[in-house]
């Protein structure tokens, strides 16, 4: 049994047949993410309905509740990274995050109609999500040799996406079976969340064999490393030239005059592409260096913008969705694999957190900017601007990113 052999903390990272096997820790974390994503996407799918229809909140209040915590997650993420780095407590910090999110479903269940209770539950969920991401990615990057990280992240992200795809289906099944008993969705989601925590506790080794590094007097902060700074800079630049998926879907929906009922299905396209491509792209990234796939992924996004400028028909729409899938497959895990090995072991979670937060904030800025441009000048000029910005950012990133893949030399 594959999983059962992986929990041994004393075992060195598997290097035999490095081309074949994915470290057990990665599979275990992938399973945790899969189950957790089923749990969280179930709730995400029904929450607006529950709040507005079940509890009679106005959409404005719902937007307020939902948006309230989004900004805070960025800071919590940095905190999670920091905590994990102190004494290599990745597993414990990540586990706390997963547990918090699982318990938040129980909170939704028990809150009944009380808005304060619901707000608290949503806050706990966001807090958990913020805390766990950086330590989890650090665990993945510490679990194997640097030259196979692309594939490791590919496998993890593919499993993660599988969970995200299954979640809404599970919610749909529960709502169908119970004729809209939202509490049943929360109960099932809670059980799935607990299973995720349990899988983490049982199958993920405490410090994945990487932390027996001698205690350095003062861990270098990631920002001191010029190579890391360049990655952060390029990521932020590219992130700020991203217009946000919701806008892309909106453009597609308007272009095709798609019935609103089908609208929630649009994100399934890129998710499926991501799922299929995450592993192969990760492998390619391991072989060619992660810089090129990362940049090409953004080029795919640029292609999607360009297609949206052309008159829309079904084939172009499908191509846009496919390009978006390629974009995610070639950038999300690949970026972690690119930056991970550059970071010192004891500062890895913190460094990845800085990178993820930087990217998230830059994307927020990009989406807000696009929204403003759309409102001020209309759809086409805004899209042109976004395309030019992305092309510029790509050219800049090409120069800024540390040239030939440093996977082997670093760390």
């Amino acid at each position, binding site marked *: 049994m594959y999983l059962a052999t992986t929990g041994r903390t004393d075992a060195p990272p598997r290097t035999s047949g490095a081309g074949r096997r994915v470290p057990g820790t990665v599979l275990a974390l992938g399973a945790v993410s899969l189950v957790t994503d089923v749990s969280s996407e179930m709730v995400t799918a029904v929450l607006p309905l529950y709040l507005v229809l079940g509890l009679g909140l106005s959409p404005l209040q719902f937007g307020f509740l939902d948006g309230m915590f989004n900004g805070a997650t960025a800071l919590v993420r940095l905190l999670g990274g920091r905590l994990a780095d102190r004494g290599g407590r990745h597993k414990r910090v990540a586990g706390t995050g997963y547990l918090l999110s699982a318990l938040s479903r129980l909170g939704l269940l028990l809150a009944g109609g009380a808005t304060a209770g619901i707000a608290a539950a949503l806050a706990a969920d966001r807090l958990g999500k913020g805390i766990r991401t950086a330590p989890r990615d650090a665990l993945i990057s510490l679990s194997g040799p640097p030259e196979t990280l692309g594939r490791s992240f590919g496998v993890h992200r593919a499993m993660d996406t599988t969970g995200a795809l299954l979640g809404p289906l599970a*919610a749909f099944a529960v709502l*169908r079976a119970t004729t809209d008993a939202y*509490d049943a969705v929360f109960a099932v989601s809670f*059980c799935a969340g607990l299973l995720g925590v349990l*899988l983490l506790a049982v199958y993920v080794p405490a410090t994945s064999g990487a932390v027996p590094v001698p205690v350095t007097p003062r861990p270098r902060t990631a920002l001191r490393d010029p190579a890391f700074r360049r990655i952060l800079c390029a990521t932020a630049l590219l992130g700020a030239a991203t217009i946000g998926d*919701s806008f892309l879907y909106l453009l597609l929906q308007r272009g095709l005059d798609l019935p*609103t009922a089908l609208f929630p299905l649009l994100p399934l396209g890129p998710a499926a592409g991501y799922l299929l491509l995450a592993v192969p792209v990760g492998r390619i990234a391991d072989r060619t260096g992660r810089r090129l796939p990362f940049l090409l992924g953004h080029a795919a996004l640029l292609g999607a913008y360009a297609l949206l400028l052309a008159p829309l028909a079904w084939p172009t729409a499908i191509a846009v969705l496919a390009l978006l899938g390629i974009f995610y497959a070639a950038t999300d895990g690949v970026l972690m694999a690119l930056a991970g090995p550059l970071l010192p072991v004891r500062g890895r979670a913190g460094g990845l957190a800085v990178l993820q937060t930087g990217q998230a904030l830059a994307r927020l800025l990009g989406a807000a900017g696009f929204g403003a441009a*759309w409102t001020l000048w209309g759809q086409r000029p805004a899209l042109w601007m976004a395309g030019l910005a992305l092309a510029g950012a790509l050219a800049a990133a090409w120069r800024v990113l540390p040239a030939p893949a440093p996977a082997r030399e670093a760390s």
Partner: protein
Amino acid sequence: MKAGHPRLAVVVIAVLLLAGGSLGYVLHARHRERPPQQAVADASFTLDEPGLYFRDSATGRVARLPARGGPRVTGGPSCDRFYAAGERALCLRKLPGLPARTRALVLDRRLREVRAVTVPGIPNRARVSASGHLVSWTAFAVGDSYATSGFSTRTSVLDLRTGYLIKSIEGIPLTIGGARHHAPDVNYWGVTFARDDNRFYATVSTRGRTHLVEGDLRNWSARALRENVECPSLSPDNTRIAFKKKVSGDPRSPWRLYVLDLAGKREHPLAESHSVDDQAAWLDDATVAYALPGREGRASDLWSVPADGTGKPRLLAPGGSSPVAVR
């Protein structure tokens, strides 16, 4: 390999327990007592008796407070939103499951189904013109802006004389401040019809602002009259509009009920000091009714207040929403 077995056993047991718990809860939820979602009106419950009709939140069905006094009569159809006028009633019902869909049922005075339309979204506003010839409803479309969890609205108008259905009035040529307005973000909600069965008022939101629009169905045009008006409701004599006005940036209590005099263009606040998120309904030319979040754990309560800004709010029906006076 051996060391893995106890662990595997723990996981298998946990999976069985958690799966069993989930299944148990789902089965429990499936069989427990809850208001039927698809109930039709009892044969004895019709619109022939004058009174205040509303949605009873305990049962989810339409109920009546008789005009001549007396206890609440239940037994209407189950609706999430209800309105009636002339010969017709409109009942909006959310269909179970995902994605959210709304069934708009047009009913006659005996509350039998005349026509039914299914649209995507969550039921939100319902109106029938005084003659009963025109009906309009609004549904929240979830997912138009996927990441920001915002809502957008879809407002339909159905002409029962011709059977012609406008699924979304978004395409109506709109004039704001004398200029044609083109924007991708226009959202309409809360239609109210004038007596001539042609003119209507509604809210349009675009570029972060809400406007009162006056629409003309025959000429298929709409123009914005003034800002910061939501969910208009035309008085029976067609001279005034009750609406909710955004008076505060505080998302917990943003709105206040106002009445606008269409001739003098003057507006005044009503005596209700709570934030009202509802399309008010005129009980007569001097009184409006509306729902507020309920006390003591009820989903909502029905209140009324004089339309001239004087007096005090009066509790009409605890546990009620969607008020409409039927004569």
